[in-house]
């Protein structure tokens, strides 16, 4: 009856999202009066995540490279063996890749994009999840004995726990994956849209790719990831991987700064899950002003350079 949570690792260490996932699993287990168990693959320090009753640690060289079928099979077996009722997974590209596969392998319903602990509706356990790309919520209940919960990033927050967790090693078979990884390229040392606490995003108001140094500099000061509106990536000013919105990447950061973006409904849908939104736009009628928490009406080309300087001073003072 326990709650199993899969905590992703990268380079043998926990990914940033592990704390929030473990916190959610611990609370869910608490609500159900049961135990929370972590599942960790190839991690050198599995014990450092607190708040769980136990951590199952799997180590195998064959799992150094991620491929989905291999990981999904292994996690499904662990789900089965643990006897858990719930499996909690995250919302990274790798975890979303696993959801459907594990659901099929374990014959359990998969409820993605969950943003809260379950509530009781007429005796049924219902999980609130976003639908229509943040334009609505559904309360969804599993019809299967076991169920996979895909937790949306930044929806629950992390509960600090100073106690470490008890670790047990488990040996599980690794299958051959029909898909093989040939090469991988990642942007090193830069915050990604998926992981960053702050995202600085710009639109067509920036006039051309030659002006993006402003956006990058602002992002650098804040340790933020850079993003853009759809037309900006369609025009080739920025790579597709930066396109955010309903048809691009979803954004759920603490702070989203939109510069020269009008705030079209498709753009807003994709970024709405962010906690605080700031808009800088020279058109006071731009729809983004209706969706943001803070705003400045004015020219990006005069405001952004000042903002960079003032933030540098602020950072120096608060370092």
């Amino acid at each position, binding site marked *: 009856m326990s709650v199993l949570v899969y905590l992703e690792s990268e380079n043998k260490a926990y990914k940033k999202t592990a704390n929030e996932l473990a916190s959610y699993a611990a609370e869910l287990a608490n609500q159900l009066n049961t135990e929370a168990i972590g599942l960790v693959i190839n991690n050198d320090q599995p014990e450092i995540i607190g708040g769980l009753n136990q951590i199952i640690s799997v180590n195998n060289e064959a799992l150094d490279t991620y*491929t989905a079928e291999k990981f999904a099979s292994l996690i499904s077996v662990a789900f089965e063996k643990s006897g858990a009722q719930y499996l909690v997974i995250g919302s990274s590209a790798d975890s979303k890749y696993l959801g459907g596969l594990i659901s099929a392998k374990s014959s359990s319903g998969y409820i*993605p994009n969950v943003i809260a602990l379950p509530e009781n509706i007429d005796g049924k356990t219902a999980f609130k999840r976003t639908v229509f790309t943040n334009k609505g919520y559904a309360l969804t209940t599993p019809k299967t004995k076991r169920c996979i919960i895909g937790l949306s990033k930044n929806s629950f927050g992390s509960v600090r726990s100073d106690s470490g967790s008890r670790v047990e090693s488990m040996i599980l078979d690794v299958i051959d994956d029909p898909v093989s*990884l040939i*090469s991988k390229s990642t942007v090193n040392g830069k915050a990604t849209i998926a992981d960053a606490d702050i995202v600085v995003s710009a639109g067509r108001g920036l006039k051309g790719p030659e002006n993006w140094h402003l956006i990058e500099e602002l992002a650098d000061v804040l340790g933020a990831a850079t993003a853009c509106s759809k037309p900006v990536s369609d025009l080739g000013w920025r790579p597709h991987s930066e396109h955010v919105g309903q048809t691009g990447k979803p954004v759920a950061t603490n*702070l989203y700064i939109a510069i020269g973006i009008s705030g079209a409904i*498709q753009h807003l849908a994709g970024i709405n899950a962010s906690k*605080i939104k700031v808009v800088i736009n020279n058109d006071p009628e731009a729809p983004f002003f209706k969706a943001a928490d*803070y705003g400045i009406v004015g020219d990006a080309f005069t405001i952004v350079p000042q903002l960079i300087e*003032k933030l540098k001073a602020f950072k120096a003072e608060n370092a």
Partner: protein
Amino acid sequence: MKILVCISAVPDTTSKINFTADQKSFDTGGVQFVINPNDEFGLTRAVWFKEQQGAEVHIATVGEASVEPIMRKALAIGADKAFRINTHPLDGFLVANTLSEHIKTEHYDLVICGRESIDYNGNMVPGLIANHCNFAFINTCTSLTVDGNKATATREIDGGSETLETQLPLVVGAQKGLVEESDLKIPNMRGIMSARTKPLEIITPSSLETLTEDLSFEKPDSKGAITLVDEANIDQLIELLHKEAKVL
């Protein structure tokens, strides 16, 4: 190569989303339906395989008769044949299960789904199909080439990309990048005319099993008012973000 593109009918991206008064379902009143954007990238790539490598392209949609206009549009874009699986798509499992039943009878080499549909954002259909049909699976696919039995694909990951290789049969989860936005096809008059006579078969699914149930729906709370800061007073913005919003 025989390709199936799975297409879902979703509200036009400009739609305001409303739910029925009892909060039990999505209110389709006044909503225009379109081909799910992720599926459209997949369809365009499938038509490219047809034009460049002689592939045969089928489409399938799980839905009631109201989805047929978008299926005709997919035929006008270049698919050869359409299958409508006649039931209301209640959850991702039902969709994947009924599509898998069809895939097993038609023996496709390549199945292209969108990585997710923009209505219920389930992001599970391609993975479920891959498992049901025992196909390889590549998600968030931003490029795909097929040479004989070998497929090479790029997958978008958080903060980068991967190149992957596998053998057909294969399911991919398509998204933007698989083809360029500018290569998306708008059906021309000839396409629209010929789509009218292309076969559209209706299939009755043998199982309507679901694994989850949506009990009710809600709209997000309306947002509070914005705090505007004068452009001459940028310090105030930093102060607010630091002290009030606590995000700096």
